[in-house]
């Protein structure tokens, strides 16, 4: 028996705490793991039941004679038996199937070798294994999707433009809110948030018409403008609080010691605000990079990468493992950007005190 009830209470609290943390971690890690794993599965694996947790690295084949030609079978780890997948005499068909469905590229001459083995060896069935090309989904994704690479560059361009527009306008407004007292300041500061009070898709159609009138429909700048509307609200609030955190006397000191207003901003205010600006840039990037709904409606021939990923799920070519590969490609730049910008954001919390 536990003699100390306080210790027991502490134990329970800690247990609940860790249960909570683990649940949280799992709920974040599991979907990511699923996406990564799926992106390495072959088409056959990704449509099998139950879905494998991890992609296989090689595939065990068996080859035997049939009436129409040859029977190709694949070893199923779950059922622990060979399952016939193809019954054909066409070696090309066999090669294509092995590559596209199983993810194991195998050339026709090599298949001929195996057949020769079957014919000459005197055996009923021959067994062989082929290494899987794990990156096949990725190369296939870029091969079958319409202009995936230009779309990737376009998305980068849009995200960059959005950061540029919303950070320059947002931080100027944020600075004004932080430093100057003027009539209607608080009302204005709150009204900036109005644009975030309804889903963007609700006005997407009107946006499309306005952009068309401006000549910006289906152009990166058009989408960047639409995204900026939403993210300016965010950057205004983030940067306003950042600028409020910088003592005015630091700027005044710069002015007394010979700096113009512009030099003061460049040499004192901006470097000090950098962590906050970086955070604002990160949110803006993530928002612009992953946004899909408006992008579907506001582009036609020049889609963003997120739209390309979405479209890869549709139609005849739509394989979920290919989409997963595309989705991971979509996630990587935002991860890189976040890691790159992380060190600036950390300054805000620990590295530097103002």
């Amino acid at each position, binding site marked *: 028996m536990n003699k100390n009830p306080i210790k027991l209470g502490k134990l329970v609290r800690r247990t609940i705490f860790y249960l909570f943390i683990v649940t949280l971690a799992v709920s974040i890690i599991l979907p990511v793991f699923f996406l990564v794993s799926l992106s390495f599965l072959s088409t056959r694996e990704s449509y099998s039941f139950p879905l494998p947790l991890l992609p296989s690295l090689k595939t065990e084949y068996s080859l035997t004679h049939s009436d129409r030609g040859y029977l190709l079978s694949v070893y199923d780890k779950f059922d622990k038996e060979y399952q016939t997948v193809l019954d054909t005499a066409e070696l090309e068909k066999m090669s294509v199937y092995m590559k596209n469905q199983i993810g194991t590229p195998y050339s026709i001459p090599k298949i001929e070798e195996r057949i020769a083995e079957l014919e000459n060896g005197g055996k009923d069935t021959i067994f062989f294994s082929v290494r899987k090309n794990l990156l096949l989904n990725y190369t296939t994704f870029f091969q079958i999707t319409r202009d995936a690479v230009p779309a990737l560059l376009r998305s980068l361009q849009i995200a960059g433009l959005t950061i540029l527009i919303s950070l320059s306008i947002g931080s100027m407004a944020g600075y004004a809110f932080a430093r100057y007292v003027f009539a209607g300041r608080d009302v204005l500061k709150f009204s900036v948030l109005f644009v975030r009070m309804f889903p963007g898709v609700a006005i997407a159609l009107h946006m499309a018409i306005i952009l068309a009138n401006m000549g910006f429909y289906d152009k990166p700048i058009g989408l960047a403008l639409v995204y900026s509307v939403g993210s300016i609200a965010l950057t205004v609030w983030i940067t306003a609080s950042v600028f409020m955190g910088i*003592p005015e*006397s*630091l700027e*005044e*000191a*710069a*002015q*007394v*010691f*010979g*700096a*113009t207003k512009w*030099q003061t901003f460049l*040499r*004192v205010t901006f*470097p*000090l605000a950098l962590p906050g600006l970086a955070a604002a840039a990160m949110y803006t990037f993530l928002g612009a990079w992953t946004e899909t709904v408006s992008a579907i409606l506001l582009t036609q021939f020049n889609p963003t990468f997120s739209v390309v990923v979405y479209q890869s799920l549709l139609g005849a070519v739509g394989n979920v493992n290919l989409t997963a590969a595309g989705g991971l490609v979509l996630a990587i730049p935002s991860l890189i950007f976040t890691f790159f910008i992380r060190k600036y954001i950390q300054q805000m919390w620990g590295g*530097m*005190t*103002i």
Partner: protein
Amino acid sequence: MATLTMQNVTKIFGRDVIAVKDFNLEVKEKEFLVLLGPSGCGKTTAMRMVAGLEEVTTGEIFIDDREVTELPPRKRNVSMIFQNYAVWPHMTVYDNIAFALKLKKLHKDEIDRRVKETAGMAKIEMLLERYPSQLSGGQQQRVAVARAIAVNPDIFLMDEPLSNLDAKLRVSMRTELKAIHDKAGSTTVFVTHDQSEAMSMADRIVIMKDGEVIQVGSPDDVYHRSGSIFVADFIGTPPTNFMDVKIQKESNGTHLVNTHLNLLLEPEMAKHLNGYDKNHIVLGIRPENIVLVGESDAALSASCLVSEPQGSHQVVAIQLDDNIVKVVAPPNPIIAPGTDVHLIFKQETLRFFDPDTTLAIND
């Protein structure tokens, strides 16, 4: 080094908040001038107008013969030490000091020489590569000082630079700031609300209240010849004791009388009241000018309320009606509460104030 002249300077915030009212001041070359007053008296605003950080509503400011009223801060050639030091946290100590010199586009070697020289004066030469967050408050203060000296300013402005330091450091920094001032030979305007700081550092003190100058003078002047009840009360710890008294002219001379006191003024002091036509005055006397004596010589007797030993002396508080009079007495023997004490005043130190205008009568 230069002189500073402020002529009829007024600062109005918004529509009707008068922060500084018709402020006139001349600061002499190499002078250490202290603006002293309670918080909200406009002393910091006055200094910020000199720096160019606040616009002047009306009036002119000159540095030497150069009018700077409309100039931006960078063109005034002043330097400033801020209350919160305002050292830039993202720059090393070296860069903090070199900032202004780099903006002046000085040669690299010259910058290096001046940074090291001023860092030496402020005793931070071993901290040059550090960032401000790695420094103590006192060290940050020294960085602010070095940064201010490095630019070789015409006028040195200090806005309550010692108020964020702990009590002991404050006193030692006082001495150092004064020494640096003497060494650099700079004209300095120093803002503070701490009267002992002002007394110990200033060549001249400007006492301000509600945006107006109340009195200008040397520490000696404002202490011993306070021009008003406000100044007499504000300067000195403990402050001047005040008593309402009636003037009674009798055959043997002029008496100051209230329920506890009947003081025959010496002829020298009585003369000061000659031109005065009311029959009441406020009598002001500093605690150290009240002397404990034997019962027979006393001008005033009362019982001790409490005594605060201070080591070198004790402060004896005496209740007179609802008025507490404080007396600085020798440290021994300690006077127990309830004991009767007998007092006389050093007559030549008495200050007479008009109860209506609160201004001093004897000057």
